[in-house]
């Protein structure tokens, strides 16, 4: 391990000393290379956002990508189902095309006769949808196969993968759900476990750079929105009388709630900010993780214009940093699933509180 660290440090020093040597070269090269320079912002945004085809790589001038089905409903011409191959080279197919700018940038739009563009009802199997379906299927297969092996072995001890999954599931169950929800946790355990493993498997698949991984599923606001809404509904439908009393008539001095209900308003907003925070936290963390990995990878291509020496040294730096960040992201994949599940469990636990103190006496002090 020490030997490995030494090698890394030496390489880093070499890279930075080469940076200085390359400054002169850089000034010469920068002018001519400006037009070839990669637009990093575009590059990252393109990778972390959704697309209608699964871009794998580019060999020479030919992009290699997996076409995905497009499913559209237009109010004028009804249902359309075709492969995204139809949009190659900016083609217009059956009146639909992909917008390159404007409000619907990157989305399919329908060209109207009068030249205006409208967005059709679009439930295409995009990259994110495909990845979502794939991971959902994978999760169902994994958990059901584990459950099936339990049916077979009964209460006897399991081995291998099933034992690992049991440890994982019971860890989440006993260390997150049980203490956070408290009494009656068994009612919520299946939902919370599903949320945990759903987020976790999508996070992990997002880290695998090749098909069928690499899509930014949990870093998409639509996904985290649905997850947060589910938690919101469960939290508020399992709210106890005491929970609603504390929101609508909290134990604060009367003037804070009587003529103008200030505290109840704040509490009501709080109901919505909790799941909102859940949604934004997961979305932002996963999107940021993907962006950092992509940014570090882009370092290789950005520094092409700085000359071969600079480029080589920065490539080394980029690879080392990418590996490091990938490990961090592996950790983040678990931590974000953990946090989402834990906070959902805490919110459910808080919504199920019992009256724990006597109501304050209102006659003066």
């Amino acid at each position: 391990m020490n030997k490995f660290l030494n090698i890394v440090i030496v390489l880093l020093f070499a890279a930075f000393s080469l940076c200085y040597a390359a400054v002169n070269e850089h000034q010469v090269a920068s002018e001519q290379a400006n037009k070839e320079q990669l637009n990093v912002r575009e590059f990252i945004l393109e990778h972390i956002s959704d697309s209608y085809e699964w871009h794998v790589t580019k060999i020479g001038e030919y992009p290699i990508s997996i076409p995905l089905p497009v499913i559209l409903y237009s109010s004028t011409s009804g249902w359309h189902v075709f492969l995204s191959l139809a949009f190659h080279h900016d083609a217009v197919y059956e009146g639909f095309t992909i917008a390159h700018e404007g409000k619907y940038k990157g989305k399919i739009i329908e060209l109207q006769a009068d030249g205006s563009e409208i967005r059709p009802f679009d439930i295409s199997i995009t990259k994110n949808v495909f990845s979502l379906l794939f991971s959902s299927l994978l999760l169902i297969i994994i958990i059901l196969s584990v459950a099936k092996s339990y049916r077979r072995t009964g209460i006897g001890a399991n081995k291998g993968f099933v034992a690992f999954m049991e440890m994982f599931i019971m860890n989440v169950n006993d260390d997150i759900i049980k203490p956070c929800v408290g009494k009656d946790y068994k009612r919520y355990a299946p939902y919370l476990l599903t949320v945990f493993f759903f987020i976790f498997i999508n996070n992990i698949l997002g880290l695998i750079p090749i098909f069928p991984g690499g899509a930014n599923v949990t870093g998409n606001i639509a996904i985290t929105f649905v997850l947060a809404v589910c938690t919101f509904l469960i939290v508020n439908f399992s709210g106890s009388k005491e929970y609603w009393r504390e929101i609508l008539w909290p134990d604060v001095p009367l003037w804070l709630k009587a003529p103008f209900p200030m505290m109840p308003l704040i509490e009501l907003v709080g109901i919505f900010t909790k799941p909102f925070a859940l949604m934004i936290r997961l979305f932002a963390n996963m999107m940021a993780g993907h962006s950092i990995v992509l940014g570090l990878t882009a370092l290789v291509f950005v520094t092409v214009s700085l000359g071969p020496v600079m480029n080589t040294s920065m490539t080394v730096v980029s690879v080392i940093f990418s590996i490091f960040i990938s490990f961090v992201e592996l950790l983040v994949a678990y931590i974000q699933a953990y946090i989402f599940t834990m906070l959902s469990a805490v919110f459910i636990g808080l919504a199920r509180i019992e009256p724990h103190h006597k109501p304050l006496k209102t006659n003066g002090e």
Partner: protein
Amino acid sequence: MSLLTPDSGLLFWMLLSFGTVVFVLAKFGFPVILKMVEERKAYIEESLLMAEKARTELDLVKSEGAQIVADARKSQQQILAEAAQLREKIIQDARTAAMTEADKVIEEAHVSIQQEKEEALRDIRKQVSSLSVQIAEKVMRSKLGEKDEQQRMIQRLLDEINISKS
């Protein structure tokens, strides 16, 4: 801003797939696993309790066994002591019985010896008397063959009687 506005298509698919995943896993997946693990936990706890119970029972049985063995040993010693006593007594009794019997036998022997001795003496006496009569007869016969001799004899006897009379 497109990153922050949820896409309706993705929303639709997410609702569909997440709903399916939650339905399937919350119905057929996790409850099965959790139930089995709970059952296993309960089984292990029960087994431990039972083992504990069996151990205490075993201890009880062991102490009972030891008690029984001690009791048996005690009664064995008692029985042995009693047997020894009984033996002594039997030997003593036999000895006294034998002694009295022997005394009786000796007594009888003495009596019969005395009787036989007396008989033998009587016999001897009878024989001696008859023998002496025969001898006397023979002597007489030989001595009293001549006439004067017979006279002398008679004389002498008469003298003797006279002498004893006088």
